């Protein structure tokens, strides 16, 4: 199976700023790939290179088997895009903008468009300039999601949406991947990425710092456990899978726990008589914070 997106060693500079500095990204067919990174890490730059709006200075990039710069038009018929910062034509209504954008890329699915307008609760008769940020976002989302595309590229697709609409968006994305379509989305909403995505690529200062299947990356993350036991819990720190163990004066211990060892460690804790237990699940957020944190520290 050939990858939908295959980028390696991408370099892009703006004046003296190196926005991308040898960045790699691979997205396989049928997967939902998340693309994470702090503000200014190079997410939008990467997406624009993938769309052939910018030209990379070095590195190789293949999208749907073509060259995104050279074959832009042909490739764009097969993909749909939601920009990070949606601006609409002030004099066109939302409905007109959706139809126009759809037709510009080669048509959209009328039935799905009507359904999406309904589901996202959009009034398509308002002029572009009168929409709020969230409603502008909906217009761009509907225009992209109503397209019968092989690949959907979305730059922070849910920014400005309310939680109900976010949930609706996640449903739609699942429906799309159920049909075998591929999605690349950049996001800051980690809960959303955890729910939706199969693979994660983390970019920082223009370089890939983590990438892989979300399930595989979980091993990098650990639950944060805080427990109070009747008996002394000092031995817990010696167990396999326990890291950063610390015990307080009042019998309170905190440590982080690898998921694979949860059963053993919990049994050991239970043997010491658990009084109180709090466990924060392994989260992307922990990974995210640790990656971002080191970025800050290294600066």
């Amino acid at each position: 199976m050939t990858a939908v997106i295959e980028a390696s060693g991408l370099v892009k500079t703006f004046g003296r700023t190196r926005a991308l500095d040898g960045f790699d990204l691979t997205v396989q067919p049928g997967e939902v790939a998340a693309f994470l990174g702090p503000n200014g890490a190079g997410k939008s730059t990467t997406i624009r290179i993938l769309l052939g709006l910018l030209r990379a200075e070095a590195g190789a990039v293949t999208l749907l088997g073509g060259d995104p710069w050279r074959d832009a038009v042909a490739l764009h018929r097969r993909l749909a895009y939601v920009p990070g910062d949606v601006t609409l034509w002030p004099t066109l209504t939302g409905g007109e903008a959706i139809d126009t954008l759809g037709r510009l890329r080669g048509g959209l699915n009328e039935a799905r468009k009507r359904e999406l307008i309904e589901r996202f609760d959009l009034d398509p008769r308002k002029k572009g300039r009168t929409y709020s940020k969230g409603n502008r976002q909906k217009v761009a989302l509907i225009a992209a999601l109503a397209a019968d595309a092989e690949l959907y590229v979305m730059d922070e697709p849910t920014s400005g949406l309310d939680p109900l609409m976010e949930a609706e968006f996640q449903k739609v994305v699942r429906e799309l991947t159920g049909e075998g379509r591929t999605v690349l989305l950049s996001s800051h909403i980690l809960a959303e990425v955890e729910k939706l995505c199969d693979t994660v690529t983390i970019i920082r200062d223009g370089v890939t710092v983590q990438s892989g299947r979300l399930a595989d990356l979980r091993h990098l993350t650990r639950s944060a456990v805080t427990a109070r036991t009747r008996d002394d819990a000092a031995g817990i720190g010696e167990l396999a899978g326990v890291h950063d163990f610390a015990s307080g004066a009042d019998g309170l211990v905190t440590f982080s726990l690898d998921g694979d060892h949860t059963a053993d460690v919990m049994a050991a804790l239970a043997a010491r008589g658990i009084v109180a237990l709090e466990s924060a699940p392994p989260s992307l957020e922990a990974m995210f914070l640790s990656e971002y944190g080191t970025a800050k520290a290294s600066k």
Partner: protein
Amino acid sequence: MSAFAGTGMLLRVALRKDRVRLSVWVGLVVLLAFYCVDAVKAAYPNEGDLAALLGFVQGPAGVAMTGPGYGLDTPTYATVFAGVYALYVYLAVAFMGATAVVRHTRADEESGRSELIGAGAVGRFAPLTAAGVVAMGASLVTGVGIVGATWSYGSAADAWLLGACAASVGIVFAGIAAVAAQLAERARSAMSMASAVIGAAVVVRGVGDIMREHGSWLSWFSPFAWAQQTRPFAEPRWWPLLVPVVVAACLWAASAVLLARRDMGAGLVAQRPGRSHASRWLAGPYSLALRLERGSIIGWSLGVGFSGLLYGSLAASVQESLANLPQNLKTVLLAQDGDLVDAYAATMAFFDALLVACFAIVAVHRLASEEAAGRAEVVLAAAVSRRTWVGASVVAALVGSVVVTLAGGLGLGIAVGASLGDSSRVWPLVLAQAAYLPAVAVVIGVTAALASARPRWVSAAWALVGWGMFAGFFGQLVSLPQAALNASPFHSSTSPGLRSSRSPPLRSWRCWRRARRSWASRW
């Protein structure tokens, strides 16, 4: 006074934002004044030779394009500058004042910057006040510059009067722009409104001045006439300047009242729901570009068509005035075309062609503004190539130019035909207007090339229209070298004998190819 809180701060922000743009504006206007002063002296080293000018400036077309002609019976360098060239200096100041106000009011509001500012400790009237102070300040500084330019004429009082006139025009049109900025929801529409008023003011005073020597009652409806009726260097009088002072005060009060009555971001006309689907017709990059240009095409067609009607309706009085002209003037005027009405109409067609070129620049300007707003990104991310995208805007500008040209030509032709009771006049005038289309195509090509190379350069295209206007109206009078005349895309259109490899169609084709190439290579 809390409604004005923060004005000082906003004023400093506006000056900081505008330090280059406004300096260039002021500098260019003052330079224009200095250049005109110098050019007349260079072209007519002997002040006595200025009488040769009279043939042009005292004919109806000349009056329409210059002014009421005070002091031109015994022309001096000073009266020729004040009576002929000053209008163009005033025109430049008018645009400077209007753009400055729109830029700091509605443009900020449309982009959302005002929301951020309004949430701070900033009074409701502060942005409008700051914009007004910037525009008036720039007008006054320009006025002082023009005093400097006319100082060499030796009459300090008249120089100061002329400077004050220039400043008064800037201040009045800043006020008109302030009202337009309250009425329109978008900066573009506000600027179109203000430009339409500027255009109407030029036409009204032209028609008014043709109706009667030294201006009729109609002239007095135009801010340009208020400045010209002070008769600097002829029989100077200051009192007409009271009119712009009072009118500007009323306009600023009106804009404040309108501002106090509306919501932020809103115009005065309430929004109605529009279509929920795009029409079948709106289906690709070309139809999108035309759809976006639709309102502008309609507005410009009405404006240019109306100005054609107005000028054309004077054909009968132009023909009458022929009988009263001295014989030597007749020979000057009739040398070229043999028909005074045709000569008059040809000048008006040239004037309308300049307006069409202005429309075209504004239309192609969309390339730059769409890119800046990020809308180019979504279009280019669809199945639209860069070439098609640039091409769509260029085609929309061309189609719009054809429509506006037809409106102007028909307006002029029908009015001339009706005024003389001669329907055979209509089509030749439509064709005469259409003959300028290749020149407009050159302007479109240059604008597209500039927008493609660097969106920020696009405004430089206005220089082409400015040069075209100067070379067309005054090129012969100040004996510009042939090469300088040829640099105007409108020049060879007026003289078919000059068409060679440098003819407009070929030049526009070259510009167009350059535009496509520079877009394809930019990233």
